[in-house]
């Protein structure tokens, strides 16, 4: 079955204020931003007779702004625009890399960061990166504004902590300490367009004497939501990256994820390849950074 255009009750506010009002009055609406996920469901005939709130015309929440303490990415900023932004390229290269492997160019030109986050797929390619940069999701509704730590935003597969009639306004990415070794690695069946089997991001600060000051490591497609490797991060802190310590960190990886067997991969493969990525990141510098 196909989508029947006449069956849609369509709202298209021109400003953020009007959008919040329209959403407040119609909290049962589906929010449309870039449409790269919503329109797929539409094409499958799953959204007939629904209300759609198209927020794509709202200019206030599009674009990247430099702040004193980081950058602020408006929810409606497309993945292509994020990649092109000078501040992002300079301070948050992992975000640029992650945005460049989301779908193909057609998807990157249309799909928005806020839409991707609100969609809450376990496989979101930018999510591990936002997790290690410790991003903050800023939310807005008629009742006011609030903010959630990126890791607190997700509740489960396709489930978020957005309240009724609440929108993502922007994503704040705070600067992190300089000198981090960094990694982004997506494993899929092809370089582009593939949904990840596993997707990893890491930041590692090592002191002059070779002890780990801090590790941040996150994995996507490895649980119902993106996961930080809390146990491995805690274990490796203050240790030198000797073989035994690296192996123990890789063993601990399993405690913070719970991958499944599905059409794209198996639990076993996902665990093995994720451990391999962590192992090479900890032992070999950033050879595995994507281009």
């Amino acid at each position, binding site marked *: 079955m196909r989508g029947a255009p006449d069956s849609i009750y369509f709202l298209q506010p021109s400003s953020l204020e009007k959008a919040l009002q329209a959403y407040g009055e119609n909290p049962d609406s589906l929010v*449309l931003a870039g*449409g*790269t996920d919503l329109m797929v469901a539409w094409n499958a005939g799953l959204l007939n007779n629904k209300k759609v709130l198209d927020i794509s015309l709202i200019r206030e929440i599009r674009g990247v702004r430099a702040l004193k303490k980081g950058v602020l990415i408006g929810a409606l900023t497309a993945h*292509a625009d994020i990649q092109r932004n000078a501040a992002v390229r300079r301070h948050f290269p992992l975000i640029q890399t992650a945005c460049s492997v989301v*779908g*193909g160019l*057609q998807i990157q*030109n249309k799909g928005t960061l806020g839409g991707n986050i609100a969609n809450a797929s376990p496989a979101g390619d930018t999510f591990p990166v936002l997790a290690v940069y410790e991003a903050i999701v800023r939310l807005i509704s008629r009742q006011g504004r609030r903010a959630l730590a990126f890791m607190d935003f997700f509740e489960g597969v396709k489930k978020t902590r957005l309240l009724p009639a609440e929108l993502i306004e922007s994503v704040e990415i705070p600067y992190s300490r300089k000198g981090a070794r960094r990694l982004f690695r997506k494993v899929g069946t092809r370089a582009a367009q593939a949904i990840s089997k596993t997707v990893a991001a890491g930041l590692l600060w090592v002191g002059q004497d070779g002890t780990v000051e801090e590790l941040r490591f996150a994995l996507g497609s490895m649980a119902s939501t993106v996961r930080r490797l809390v146990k491995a991060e805690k274990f490796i802190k203050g240790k030198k990256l000797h073989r035994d310590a690296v192996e123990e960190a890789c063993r601990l990886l399993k405690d913070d994820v719970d991958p499944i067997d599905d059409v794209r991969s198996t639990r076993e493969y996902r665990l093995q390849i994720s451990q391999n990525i962590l192992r090479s990141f900890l032992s070999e510098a950033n050879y595995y950074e994507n281009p």
Partner: protein
Amino acid sequence: MRIKLTINKKKRVYEGAPFKRLIDVLRENYELTGTKEGCGEGECGACTVLVDGDPVNSCLIPVAQMNGRRIETVESLGTPKSLHRLQESFLREGGAQCGICTPGMLMSAWAWISRGGSARPSEIRRALAGNLCRCTGYQHIVNSVIKIIKERKRESRTK
């Protein structure tokens, strides 16, 4: 809903359901049937058109989002009697086989070429990564694009 848009340099005023997809508006309202629908999921890129110069999947866009935008379809390139040189290059190099991916391939390639994209195969492959060819004729497609970029460079040097 009334939507003003420019399609292949012609100003158009669409009146109808806001949630009609761009691909259906192009094919049904304006008889521009060059744009093909493949998967309907944003995976194959057969429906690729350019919006303000950027390649996008026309099967994933409700026409209501196109007010004031500039759209280019494969019909903007050439006609059967007078092919665009990119189309000629596809013919010469064997870049078109069954043909279903070709309109989308051409538009993604044209977006790359017209913005001064390089002739490096790895970069061309990235630019075309959102377009699938199930005849798997990728090498010939990439060659078709390389040839025309090199031709254009030679010409701009001799000018």
